[in-house]
């Protein structure tokens, strides 16, 4: 099944048309997307640096993960909402864009990983887990989120 009809439908939607024809809407939504990017970066780093042993070492990772959780989820929701608005304004371009496809796949992987394996390890009893295993989870998380960000930035550079 091709997703092209869906992309065409999005692009033809009233929201897509409104954002595309407004001189400033895309810029404003993009700015919101960037503000949420900074926040999600902070929320991810607080936990992952701790798992790597570089962060707030004297505090349990579980406590930091709980503290960062609302900021992670909140900024992720803002990212998804603003990202969806950007998408409907240029869906057909996105459909044919390799960086966009890479981004969607890495986003799916990053979200699944963050709320399953990563969450379980961050919340687990530290004495019962090897540091190397925790570090690996952090590296995978950082790599996946980096792929999301880097491919996201590259959408704007490709045709």
């Amino acid at each position: 099944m091709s997703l092209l009809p869906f992309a065409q439908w999005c692009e033809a939607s009233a929201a897509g048309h409104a954002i595309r024809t407004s001189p400033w809407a895309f810029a404003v939504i993009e700015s919101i997307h960037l503000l949420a990017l900074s926040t999600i970066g902070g929320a991810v780093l607080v936990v992952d640096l701790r798992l790597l042993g570089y962060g707030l070492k004297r505090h349990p990772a579980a406590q930091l993960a709980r503290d960062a959780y609302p900021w992670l989820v909140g900024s992720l929701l803002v990212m998804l909402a603003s990202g969806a608005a950007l998408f409907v304004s240029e869906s057909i371009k996105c459909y044919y864009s390799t960086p966009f496809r890479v981004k969607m796949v890495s986003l799916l992987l990053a979200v699944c990983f963050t709320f399953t394996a990563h969450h379980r390890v961050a919340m687990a009893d530290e004495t019962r887990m090897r540091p190397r295993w925790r570090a690996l989870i952090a590296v995978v998380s950082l790599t996946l989120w980096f792929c999301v960000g880097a491919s996201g930035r590259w959408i704007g550079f490709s045709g």
Partner: protein
Amino acid sequence: MSSFCEWLAATPGSIALHESFFVYPLVESVHVLTLCVFVGLAAMLDLRLLGVTMRRVPVSEVVSRFLPWMVAGFVVMVVTGVLLFYAIPVRSYHNIFFRVKVMLLILAGVNAWVFHARLYTRVADWDLAPITPRGARVAGALSLVIWAVVIVCGRMIAYDWFDCDKAQSPIVVRAAGCDGYQR
């Protein structure tokens, strides 16, 4: 300053960077993604000062553990930012978003300096307080707002709404220094 930018724009390095197919986007990507490290951690520190996250972590610990990463991130931001300016000096210099951004960067620096020189010296008194004293909260809130506007201005530099090569209102002409604009 305008003639300095014109001279800069004519240097081979500036032209090469401006016309490069991969290096310019790469520099820009590094600039944007480093936001996560620098502004991301700065925001978490600010939110701690405001008492809305990591309330059980002493402020001094957040500062000492985050600062090396923030400094590293800041250095990358400045180096890539300077390179981006170097690639497009004249247009950037006459861009009002760029001008506002530079002023806000100075303001952010002053805010950080006041926090470290005046408020942070007494951190021992409120290190474990879930909510910090008013001064520290104001510094945290100011930092959040300033960096947010810096990010928005940075993004808006890319748009040509107020560029000098278009007809602009007298206010924009003055703010962007369009009278000294050439080319």
